[in-house]
Structure formats: structure tokens, C-alpha cells
């Protein structure tokens, strides 16, 4: 599946894939028919066409964190671009990716050895989807939305990220009108890597702020 191109640790193998849980919800089969019935009704009224629906699903598949990773890798290698990304992420994305982020405001936030940003949407699921793909299920889940703003260090610890006590944690709450992209710290030992190699180190989670960028192989 193209949506999760990082090496995010998977631990869903022990669960019954058909068991209801927060990510799947109850009575999955019923919903399949309800969605199909809705589409048929809208097609019958001439409001949408099956081709339009297919094109939208293809658009979903085409938006992956690899797009955001290109922005980060460019910012790591080009100080002028980095300044532009931090000043106006929308125009930076338009320039480098040739796509409109499709949101009213997109703000890039730089993580450093002193300040660490984490993004949440406490109300729902606001996310820079055009450049990161659909948000992960946990981002839309109640536990992350409830806890991220009150105990961010504990939440980050669950993601395997232990921050030094002197690092200031800033949690930003997204809205429909304002979305965020975290510019993670460039890992040490990557000075000689190409932009493309650097982009491969940039994970979805590092652009949400719940992880660091990956370390290059051979560097600890």
C-alpha cells in the first residue's frame, strides 16, 4: 500500500483483522453496502459519475508522504528554499512539487535540538493531506487527540521518542484553516548524501513530529 512508505513499526499482526476496533469500527460489511448505495443514488441523480469517483480514489493513492519528504530534503540542502518553506510553505510546495496544497494556510515548523514541534488535530483530523497523504489512523483516533496536548512527552515516549528535559515541546493544534508540516532535524552523518537519499530518511511520522528522521545506515 502506497500510503505508508515509512518503516513504522507494525504491531497489528496479532490482532484478528476482522475484529472491530477503533480503526475499523463495528459491522464493517454493512458499511460497504451503504457506501455503494449512496454512490448509486448520487449517480442516478446525475450529481457524480463513477469515473469521477475512480479519479478521486486514484488521487488518494497518489498522495503519499514522499511528496512532503521532497520538501524536507530540499530544505536540508538549500538554505534559501528552507527560508521560503518556513516563510510560506504553500508557495514552496507549489514551486517544488507543482501541486497546490489545497488548504487555506500551511505552516512549516522547524524542529531543532532545543525546540520540538508535534502536530495534532484535537477536533478531528486536519492534516496537510495533499503533501502527506491521508493521515494515519492513530492521528484520527481519540487517544492521540485527547492526550497529545496534555502529556506530549508521554505520547512521544509511546512512539519511541524520548526528548531531553531541556527540549521545549510545542504542540500545535490544526484546524480546517491552518495545517502544519514539521521540518525535522537533519540527522548527523548525512553531509555527503544526495537530496534523493536524504528524502528517503524523512518519514511520515517525522513530519508530524512524533518521530525523528531516520538515521542513515551505518551511523548510530
Amino acid at each position: 500500500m502506497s500510503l505508508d512508505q515509512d518503516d513504522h513499526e507494525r504491531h497489528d499482526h496479532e490482532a484478528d483483522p476482522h475484529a472491530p476496533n477503533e480503526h475499523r469500527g463495528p459491522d464493517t460489511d454493512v458499511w460497504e453496502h451503504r457506501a455503494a448505495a449512496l454512490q448509486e443514488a448520487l449517480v442516478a441523480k446525475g450529481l457524480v459519475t463513477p469515473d469521477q469517483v475512480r479519479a478521486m480514489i486514484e488521487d488518494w493513492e497518489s498522495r503519499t508522504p514522499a511528496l512532503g519528504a521532497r520538501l524536507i530534503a530540499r530544505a536540508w540542502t538549500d538554505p534559501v528554499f528552507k527560508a521560503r518553506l518556513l516563510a510560506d510553505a504553500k508557495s514552496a510546495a507549489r514551486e517544488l512539487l507543482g501541486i497546490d496544497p489545497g488548504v487555506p494556510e500551511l505552516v512549516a515548523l522547524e524542529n531543532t535540538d532545543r525546540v520540538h514541534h508535534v502536530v495534532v488535530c484535537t477536533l478531528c483530523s486536519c492534516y496537510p493531506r495533499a503533501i502527506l497523504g491521508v493521515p494515519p489512523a492513530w492521528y484520527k483516533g481519540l487517544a492521540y487527540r485527547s492526550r497529545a496536548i496534555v502529556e506530549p512527552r508521554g505520547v512521544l515516549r509511546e512512539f519511541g521518542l524520548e526528548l531531553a528535559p531541556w527540549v521545549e515541546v510545542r504542540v500545535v493544534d490544526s484546524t480546517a484553516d491552518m495545517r502544519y508540516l514539521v521540518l525535522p532535524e537533519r540527522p548527523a552523518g548525512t553531509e555527503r548524501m544526495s537530496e534523493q537519499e536524504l528524502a528517503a530518511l524523512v518519514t511520515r511520522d517525522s513530519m508530524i513530529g512524533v518521530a525523528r528522521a531516520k538515521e542513515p545506515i551505518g551511523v548510530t
Partner: protein
Amino acid sequence: MPGIHDRGGWPDDSPIDRSEHQPLLWEQRTDALMRLLSSPEKGIIRVDELRRQIESLDPERYETYSYYQRWLTAIENLVIEKGIVTAEELDRRAAELEAQSAQTPPPP
């Protein structure tokens, strides 16, 4: 008392389920329909209307439904509310599809 959707700081000590969810086709279909209906060209449903419907789900459904179950319920409510389709039409067709799939033998 905040609304059921307003989760920031909501008492919650449950661990974050970090398992990756592979999207199901009906979820992608639901998402596609919403994005089409809310596109500037069509302008049939506004995103704020979707939010109003999601945020006014009763608390039990809000907390047990998955993300796209909330969405689909909200979109259904909106197209019914706008008089585009009736609840009966949607229910009848969903039941027919359900019956059809029940008759189809599972693949060998």
C-alpha cells in the same frame, strides 16, 4: 462541557493504537464522494456541514464508530436533509446489495 468531538485534554489514559490501518474500498469511496460533493464545481455539501453532522452524532456512536463510519453517516444525513435522496431509498438499496452479496458464494 465540551462537545463530544472536542477531545483536547479529554480524560483518557488509553494507549495509542499505532497499528496501520489499510484503507478499505468503501472508505475510499466515502472519502471520494465527500470530496466530489464539496468540490467548488459541485458545491453540494460544505465541509462545515460535514463537521456539523459529525460533531452532532450522539456520543455513543461518535466514540464507537470508525472515522469513515462517522463520515458516511454524516454525508447520508446531509443528502437526506437537503432532499437529494430519501432515507428509504438509501436503506432499500443497501439492503438489496446486502442480499445480493449474501447469495454470492464465497470464492473457492
